[in-house]
């Protein structure tokens, strides 16, 4: 199938199209944060603190007079980067462990028990504990979240590997003389792309929420780095005076996470129509 055809099928549902457009806008605003806002996100102006949204400050200013739009735009860079790294990291690690557990029967039990043990912790609690031990930094947040989401991916990949492994073409590939590594890499992995792709989009969404939650709880990214989470966390005590300073970063989180989820749903429905849920 050609790419335009796939996209047309994917976007046949308007809500998936809307989600994709929202994501593109969020990414573009984050990437071109500087030229778009023309302001420094850390430049304080105490005289203009907590000002309403206006022509000079599109979304108003926060408690230190920093431009909220600039901060959300720059914050998007950090939030999206953290989420992207988390998604990539946990997909790579989870796929590796899932393939190993699903393909090599001897390694199934050890890997699966570790995965089960890790999944029995509440996600956010495990992440809090990890960042608490490692110390707050962007990389540590990514590391903690990768550790939290890897078992999730591993479980899905293992289940799919168990199915694909038994298909006749795997045996046929062996009969052609393909090595075990070659069978895993060239014959099994490509057949797992749809569940992996769907997991990637969901984990991207979870990671944005989790980063925000960690930052809000004070165990995430250091407060001087503007992410959507640190913005909500830092401004919460001013919320009753100036609702917008928590509303807008919060909206950014909700819109991005929701769009990612919807896109993930759309991709899953496209790849596996049997799982389609009525929206």
């Amino acid at each position, binding site marked *: 199938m050609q790419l335009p055809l796939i996209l047309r099928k994917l976007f046949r549902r308007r809500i998936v199209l809307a989600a994709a457009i929202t994501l593109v806008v969020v990414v573009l605003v984050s990437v071109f944060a500087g030229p778009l806002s023309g302001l420094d996100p850390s430049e304080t102006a105490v005289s203009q603190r907590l000002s309403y949204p206006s022509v000079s400050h599109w979304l108003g200013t926060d408690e230190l007079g920093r431009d909220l739009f600039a901060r959300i735009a720059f914050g998007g860079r950090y939030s999206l980067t953290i989420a992207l790294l988390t998604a990539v990291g946990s997909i790579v690690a989870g796929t590796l462990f899932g393939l190993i557990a699903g393909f090599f029967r001897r390694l199934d039990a050890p890997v699966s028990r570790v995965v089960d043990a890790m999944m029995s912790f509440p996600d956010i609690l495990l992440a809090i504990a990890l960042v608490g031990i490692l110390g707050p930094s962007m990389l540590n947040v990514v590391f903690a979240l990768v550790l939290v989401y890897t078992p999730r991916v591993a479980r899905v990949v293992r289940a799919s590997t168990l199915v694909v492994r038994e298909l006749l073409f795997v045996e046929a590939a*062996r009969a*052609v003389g393909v090595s075990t590594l070659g069978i895993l890499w060239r014959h099994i992995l490509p057949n797992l792309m749809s569940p992996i792709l769907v997991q990637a989009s969901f984990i991207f969404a979870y990671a944005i929420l989790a980063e925000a939650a960690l930052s809000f709880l004070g165990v995430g990214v250091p407060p001087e780095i503007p992410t959507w989470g640190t913005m909500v966390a830092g401004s919460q005590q001013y919320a009753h005076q100036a609702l917008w300073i928590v509303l807008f970063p919060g909206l950014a989180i909700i819109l991005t996470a929701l769009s990612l989820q919807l896109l993930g749903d759309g991709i899953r429905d496209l790849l596996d129509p049997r799982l389609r849920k009525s929206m």
Partner: protein
Amino acid sequence: MNRLEVRKLSTFFDTDEGLIRSVADVSFNIRAGKTTAIVGESGSGKSVTSLTLMRLLPRTASTQVSGQALFVNRAGQTLDLLTLPEPRMRAIRGNEVAMIFQEPMTSLNPVFTIGEQIAESLRLHKGLDRAAAMAQALRMLELVEIPAAAQRVREYPHQLSGGMRQRVMIALAMACDPTLLIADEPTTALDVTIQAQILALMRRLQAETGMSILFITHNLGVVAHHADDVAVMYAGRIVEAAPVNDLFARPQHPYTQGLLACLPGQQRKRVQTVDGKRRLYAIRGQVSSPLAPPPGCAFEPRCDKAVAACREAMPALRTDDAGGSARCILVPEAASV
């Protein structure tokens, strides 16, 4: 010259219910450029035999294999397929010994084009680069008479019919010009007209390349037309082995006789009409469980000619003057007639 000499091959599966002897003491030869067919009903161990020879038994099963499978490769060396180290076995699979399977619908990888899948084997064994392998893949598709091969080579398995896919599987198996082709019920999943085409194709390729074929099937009609030597398996053992003409003309073992009598065309010749109706002959009963084999001959509970001595011990495979052999205590008398 024998391409493959299988000697006393046994395959056991260690299951929770006990040790199951799926293939027991199987010996047969495949002559160079000739076709040996293994015939038997479901569960007789014929597929396990082929998988054992390819060392493709599922790694999940705890299997034990004994015996020898002496294979003469292109260079004239004799190798025991059962004890060869895995890397050397991998170099033989798909290269010297190729295999085609019963289910053409599922034996191709759905996410690659058929050209890429044929090319993979060529790149693996012949060291061709991508472009050369794809060009050779196209020639292979033309060899197996796939129409519009230039277009098909870029298509995915789901775009092909069952017969076309089996042709692709044959092209894939033939890609490295193997000396032995193991065909495990290659036509069972296809409809009859396609079956005939595929069999004709395999014959043509055998005539052109001089490869040997191990043909696993339960279809006696196919055996009669396409095999040179036949081994009949029952409950994991070879019960009769003979050149194809002898086997069909003078079946020795009661099981072989029963199988032939089951064929509608044969029945008219062999079985007289009973109370005015022509009934198709059927071998009564069913295959005994491998967990509780009968004490004597495995076929004894179903055999019309069984005598008391049959219940005492498994008869040995006895060779007669014509070069055939049968595992039945009644055979020597029959052979001396």
